[in-house]
């Protein structure tokens, strides 16, 4: 911790990235006694805490935070942003993540005081606008997914999954079913099996067939009375549409199982096909993917869950409802309970709804079509060098394997990812899904132009060609070199665990 006597302070409060040096931490810039500004004068005399609080709980000394001027605060975080890639800076083809452009209109919506500064526990008479936003977004989502009712509360996709699985569980309990397991294809995202466990079920992995799809015949072998349901994404994580979804649904439904739809891939089919029409009973959507709300460097997201009519009574509460005199808040009769401290990541709803209203029904349908067009175009462009894991027409993303490149040159998927960073592109998702060896999972999204796809394809191909030269291939293990940091030693971070400034030494 900072010593009590004013130390030298940061070597420099003003080294921009252009200088090529790493940014010191905010604590390195700290000098005891500095501050950004003063607090408001309330006109109330400051009292001795000991007169109000049990003295044995009072701190002995003030808690030490960074002590900087506002000038240094602003310098620090501004320089950090110059060390950070983002959608606004460039192409971000992270498969499964749908890193599309986030329109700026939503920022403006989010900043309206009547949106941003509303207390969640205010009486319903004072939050009618917010409740209408919630109800309207639910309507949009149920129409898009083909379901009957929805909750917006889950704060992200994974929380949506768990919420949905608890609804599944409540359904089975209500029917007196005794179910123990949930089926999951081996291509599934890690959150799926983790959620299953947390919902109290056993996750059973179903292998994909050679076409990257659920093998319906094999699946049949897994289906018995203990099956509570199945979790699928459709298109799945290799970017292919599970064409036999109706058969799968029939099979699962035959044992009174439920179908859960992981909405991470919804971007492929908005306005084209609906999970509800495919036989899904529970669907989450990731507003931070399909509906263009920004991902915030890791969050916040929002993972609303929509359900078929017979499951509506299990939805979590509180629940905004339309009444004859405006909007109110209610709890469904057999609710699984509350899943968020308040109503969920509300401002994200406002952003997503603003986006949906701007595009409209037809715009949303076009969005998906162009996402799929972009993916297929890019896939075809790079196919001679980067064979797709599966040949079929892909949906909004696709997976290629560089197993052969690795075998021939020793260059791995990771090296190719890093080499791309040097070209000014973000890397695709690597080593996922697990069923594809040396996978690169590429999702261009609909907001990228053909020119960007061409430039990206060119870079990828150039990199592939470089692997044919053994020196060039070897040097790729050192990539990237033009980025704010060169290749980062991940193993060292785990070995010498330093997760705070105070753990250094």
């Amino acid at each position: 911790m900072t010593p009590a006597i004013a130390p030298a302070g940061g070597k420099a409060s003003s080294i921009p990235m252009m200088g090529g040096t790493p940014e010191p931490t905010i604590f390195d810039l700290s000098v005891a006694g500095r501050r950004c500004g003063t607090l408001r004068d309330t006109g109330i005399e400051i009292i001795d805490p000991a007169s109000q609080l049990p003295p044995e709980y009072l701190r002995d000394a003030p808690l030490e935070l960074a002590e900087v001027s506002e000038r240094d605060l602003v310098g620090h975080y501004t320089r950090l942003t110059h060390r950070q890639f983002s959608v606004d800076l460039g192409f971000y083809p992270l498969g499964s993540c749908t890193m599309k452009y986030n329109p700026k209109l939503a920022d403006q919506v989010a900043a309206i005081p009547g949106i941003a500064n509303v207390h969640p526990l205010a009486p319903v008479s004072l939050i009618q606008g917010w409740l209408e936003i919630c109800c309207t977004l639910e309507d949009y989502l149920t129409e898009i997914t083909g379901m009957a009712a929805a909750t917006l509360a889950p704060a992200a996709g994974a929380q949506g999954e768990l919420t949905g699985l608890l609804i599944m569980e409540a359904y089975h309990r209500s029917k007196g079913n005794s179910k123990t397991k949930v089926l999951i294809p081996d291509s599934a995202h890690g959150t799926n099996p983790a959620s299953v466990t947390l919902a109290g079920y056993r996750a059973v992995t179903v292998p994909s067939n050679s076409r990257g799809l659920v093998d319906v015949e094999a699946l049949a072998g897994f289906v018995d009375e203990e099956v509570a349901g199945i979790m699928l994404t459709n298109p799945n994580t290799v970017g292919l549409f599970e064409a036999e979804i109706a058969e799968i649904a029939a099979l699962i439904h035959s044992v009174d199982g439920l179908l859960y739809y992981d909405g991470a891939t919804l971007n492929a089919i908005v306005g084209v096909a609906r999970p509800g029409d495919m036989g899904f009973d529970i669907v989450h959507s990731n507003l931070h993917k399909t509906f263009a709300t920004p991902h915030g460097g890791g969050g916040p997201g929002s993972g609303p869950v929509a359900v078929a009519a017979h499951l509506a009574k299990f939805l979590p509460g509180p629940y905004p409802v339309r009444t004859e005199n405006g909007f109110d808040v209610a709890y469904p009769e057999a609710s699984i309970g509350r899943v968020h401290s308040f109503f969920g990541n509300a401002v994200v709803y406002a952003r997503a709804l603003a986006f949906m209203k701007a595009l409209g029904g037809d715009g949303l349908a076009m969005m998906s079509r162009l996402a799929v067009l972009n993916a297929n175009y890019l896939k075809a462009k790079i196919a001679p060098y980067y064979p797709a894991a599966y040949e079929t027409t892909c949906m909004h993303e696709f997976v290629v394997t560089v197993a052969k490149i690795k075998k021939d040159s020793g260059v791995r998927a990771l090296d190719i990812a890093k080499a791309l960073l040097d070209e000014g592109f973000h890397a695709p998702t690597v080593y996922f899904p697990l069923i594809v060896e040396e996978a690169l999972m590429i999702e261009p999204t609909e907001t990228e132009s053909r020119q960007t796809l061409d430039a990206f394809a060119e870079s990828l191909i150039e990199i592939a060609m470089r692997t044919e030269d053994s020196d060039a291939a070897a040097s790729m293990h050192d990539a990237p070199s033009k980025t704010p940091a060169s290749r980062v030693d991940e193993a060292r971070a785990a070995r010498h665990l330093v997760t705070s400034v105070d753990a250094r030494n």
Partner: protein
Amino acid sequence: MSGFTPHTQAEITSMLEFLSLSSLDELYDSIPQALLLSRSLNLPEGRSEVEVIEEFEDLAARNSPVSKELLCFAGGGAYDHDLYAATKALGSRSEFVTAYTPYQPEVAQGVLQALFEYQTMVSRLSGLAITNASLYDGSSALVEAINLACARTKRSRVIISEGVNPSWREVAATFSSGPGHQLELAHLDSSGCTIWPANTSEVAAFVVAYPNFLGLIEEISAARQLASAAGALLIVAYDPIATSLLKSPGALGADVAVAEGQPLGIPLSFGGPYLGLFSTTLELVRYLPGRLVGETLDTRGNRAYVTTLRAREQDIRREKASSNVCTNQTLMAIWAAIQLSWLGTSGYREIGLKCLSGRAYLTDSLKRRGVGEVRLGRGSFREFPLTIEKSPSQVVEDMASRGFLAGVALEGRLAISNFDSSLLIAVTEKRTKSQIDSFVDALVEVLK
């Protein structure tokens, strides 16, 4: 077609040609005809951005925001603190806002370093060495803490104080059903202190709030002793503004400390996005939910940051992971770190002093004017229950028409034993003497 997608008709045509397709619909040939939506979505037509913004301005006009329309004396887990211009400006920089999870550290040092610094700050607040890169909100942090405790102790019985935010307790109950944790409620006495059960065998964790939902300080040492005796973990749900004056949960022996980070510079936002703070001891690091940023070096020997111990996480551990969290609240964590750095050592302490002094000024006034029963228990920080004779929710409505969000009615799902007919009132550093004076005047009138 809106401007959201860049494709011109000519480009669509030529891209389709390149793919030897003749229409966009053919892209969906793998979808069986019967599953295709044979109609347009039944949604309104698209509109220009300026019209959409105006629509939301109209919706917003049907809410009553704090400051502009209502002076806020409500808390209950969401507080009306000042937010500084630099926090907003920096936290809105698009590199932070439009980045993904930092999977490629070489181009994500901005987010990673900001998170590393955030972890440092929250570890200081909590007094615990390990802090993750955020969870969804206070309640989800509590859920993860309970899961951690049960996984660690291989037990399932959890004693949770009634002083923990009732909504968080509801969330904990929801998510305990799956793993099969048994949550037992320990009620509050009339001074707002938890009455712990006598039988503490096989307890995985004791959960206590500090200050509690009523804003009152409980005896944490009692819970710590019980936990130690029972071989259980102590989970403390703290208030990250109260720690400006109060000892950290870690200093009081917490094994896990969780909090709602909203008061650290996040707008009220109708309840979200907020920020779940989660800290624990180094010993428990392998049970940690969520992402963790570690310091390391790059090949040039420069300091660099990266997410670490990823093998704990769901994307690698899959069904064996103790948490499913993936997307978290990174941006909010960055906001909180900026706000805390804006405040610095002295500003942070002053906020605490101002909240406390404002609360004391209000409770003194209420006592002096004989308004209801002010209940301060063993000590209150910035919030307290006022037991009144009228219906608290009616009083809130009446006060709203006078320009005050008077508090949170402790009714229905927010009811607390021994605190019937009470209004939970909070005072932040934003409330001035004259605002408090007029609040008291209005309350006197309304309660008349």
